[in-house]
């Protein structure tokens, strides 16, 4: 124990933030969130869900102009229509979800102990389709993003509270996601943590790096860059490609584990999807 504490202290002095391997998720969570509260003392805690807009006034103003009538509204409308259109067998998406799919999207991802895996919202949408004799949708954009946008919109404002069940497989998924977040990858040999923890708030050429706290809450997202909606895993893939690492497939076990860890770290914050970003 003493050795571990010393190592953490040294890392702390070096300004390197690390989550010790033996800590519990709850301990990780406190450390993670406190790091950002300390790093950005002028940001109200609940504002981290707005990413760089919580730390940069000029871009916030542009974002607020966009939010006057955000382009993702087109997506929500499409998504609601898709959600309410019955499958060929007459059933609807509502039949696959709690509360008919309304106001529950913020509960994803969760660890399904009977299936032994992490279930994300998009995965659940496709599982619903397949269970009702429909072809699965592609996971990065298009209809899946629209349906996810609609479902997330009905959950807007709900508090994220991912609970890791007392199951070694769930803990393993969490640890796998955590490992992914901190692992160096790609030709540029960078980890998610390098940009979004150590360099959060700094510029990388012309872009401002968003803090990892509150980073997933606004997905799916309409990015001006994409000129359309995209899912979290689309962004994970894009980020991996940007450090010249081979991306994982959307909804692969690796990205689902990453999403599990990444979302858990935003416990206590409000779900605010879908979002608009540059």
């Amino acid at each position: 124990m003493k050795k571990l504490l010393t190592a953490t202290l040294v890392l702390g002095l070096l300004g390197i933030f690390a989550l010790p391997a033996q800590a519990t998720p709850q301990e990780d969570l406190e450390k993670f969130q406190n790091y950002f509260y300390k790093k950005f003392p002028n940001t109200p805690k609940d504002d981290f869900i707005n990413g760089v807009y919580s730390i940069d006034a000029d871009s916030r103003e542009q974002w607020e102009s966009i939010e006057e009538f955000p382009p993702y509204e087109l997506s929500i409308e499409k998504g609601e229509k898709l959600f309410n259109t019955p499958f060929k067998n007459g059933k609807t998406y509502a039949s696959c979800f709690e509360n008919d799919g309304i106001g529950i999207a913020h509960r994803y991802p969760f660890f399904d102990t009977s299936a032994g895996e992490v279930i994300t919202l998009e995965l659940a949408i496709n599982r619903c389709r397949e269970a009702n004799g429909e072809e699965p949708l592609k996971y990065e954009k298009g209809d899946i993003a629209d349906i996810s946008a609609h479902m997330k919109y009905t959950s807007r404002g709900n508090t994220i509270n991912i609970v890791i069940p007392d199951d070694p497989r769930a803990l393993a998924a969490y640890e796998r996601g955590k490992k992914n977040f901190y692992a160096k990858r790609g030709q540029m040999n960078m980890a998610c943590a390098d940009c979004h923890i150590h360099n959060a708030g700094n510029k990388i050429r012309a872009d401002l790096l968003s803090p990892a706290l509150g980073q997933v809450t606004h997905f799916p997202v309409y990015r001006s860059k994409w000129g359309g909606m995209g899912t979290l895993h689309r962004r994970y893939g894009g980020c991996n490609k940007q450090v010249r690492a081979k991306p994982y497939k959307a909804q692969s076990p690796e990205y689902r584990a990453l999403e599990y860890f990444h979302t858990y770290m935003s416990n206590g914050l409000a779900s605010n999807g879908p979002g608009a970003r540059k």
Partner: protein
Amino acid sequence: MSIKMRAAAQDGVTTIKALISHPMETGTRKDKKTGEKIPAHFIQEVVCEHNGNTVMTAQWGPAISKNPYLSFRFTGGNAGDTVKLSWVDNKGNSDSSEASIN
């Protein structure tokens, strides 16, 4: 239905906010897969009418952003009045939508 519109009246002034689903292609972008230029496809004109009057004629070029937004204000207009917004693009496509002033 490509137009989402909100019309609200306050102190004798009606504010219109519209969001239109449209690619607004400039004609200079290249298709990543084929390398071919994607043809220009953009809204050229947006017209808004209230009580038989044209309150706004917006002439657009391809430099208006994809999924374009437009907002403007006019005097008069009472809650319950109908406002009609229409657009025509360079390919001859069009759409129109009506909204009630709140």
